[in-house]
């Protein structure tokens, strides 16, 4: 079942600071985890730089991520943003599915056959634990992107995986 392991709903915004303010105010989010990844990703056009700003929080067992694309290979994020650049309201972008076996994850992705948006990181400037993410373009069948992600145990701890939360 490809959609098993769902752990995250992710959004894009034109302005992360404003989006955090909106979400915090409306949904009572007291603290976001913040990272500003500056990395190289793999694409069908070869390796590309990608820089973005990211905020995330856990609401029960659901991780909510908000991404502001900054520069580089960000068209897949920008494609889901509103035309009005002053509109900072988050827009739904992808779901993320947890996998704990990277090789099996890659076999699954190959069987799924959805177009690759990008994957990585090939390299990243931030000091973070090991992780792999693969963004697939699921817009035709689901209306949005689908991310598969493998992380080391340290990586899951880094993103604050709730203690005792199973992988469904």
């Amino acid at each position, binding site marked *: 079942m*490809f*959609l098993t392991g769902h752990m995250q709903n992710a959004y894009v915004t034109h302005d992360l600071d404003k989006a955090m303010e909106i979400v915090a105010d*409306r949904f009572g989010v007291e603290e976001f985890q913040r990272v500003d990844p500056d990395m190289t990703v793999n694409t069908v056009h070869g390796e590309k730089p990608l820089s973005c700003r990211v905020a995330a929080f856990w609401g*029960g067992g659901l991780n909510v991520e908000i991404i502001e694309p900054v520069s580089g290979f960000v068209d897949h994020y920008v494609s889901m943003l509103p035309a009005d650049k002053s509109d900072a309201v988050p827009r739904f972008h992808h779901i993320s599915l947890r996998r704990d076996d990277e090789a099996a994850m890659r076999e699954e992705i190959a069987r799924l056959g959805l177009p690759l948006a990008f994957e990585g990181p090939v390299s990243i400037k931030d000091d973070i634990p090991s992780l792999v993410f693969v963004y697939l373009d699921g817009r035709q069948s689901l209306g949005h992107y689908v991310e598969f992600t493998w992380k080391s145990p340290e990586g899951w701890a880094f993103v604050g995986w709730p203690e005792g939360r199973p992988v469904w």
Partner: protein
Amino acid sequence: MTLTGMHFRHFFQNAYVTRDLARAEALIGARHGIGEWVHFEPEMDVFTATDGQGMAHVKVALGWAGNLQIELIEPVSGNVQHYLDRLPADEGNASPQFHHICMRVADWDATMALVEGGGWPVAYRGGVPGCEFVYIDARDSLGHYVEYMWMSDEMWAGSGGPAEITG
């Protein structure tokens, strides 16, 4: 507990609207491995912010992937403008369009008291025996609707709902 403390607790569903339920099921089922869908076609007396009290007729399919429920909704007639607004302009496009998330709640009266007390805009409210639901219009804060739903344990089990999602 305040509403803000329970916003995403007991999340279990991502919901989509489509112009053609059968074609949307085929798109998702073939690609994403949901083989069994539960179908129902309620005609309910509902409240909507756009049209007030009246009947709504929709076709619905529910499928599970782990503890995530995928809901597909094809609006048919009546007070369904909040669904129609999210459909693509191309009438031949049956691709699902993300519409809302849903959380199960245990105490319906307490939930509605928090919704009303917190000044949350109600976009859609209705129910059938064993189930009550309300859509909050969160388009100005999260880009989509947010649903809270109370369901009897019997109906929840019958829908394939995991026992650990208690509301």
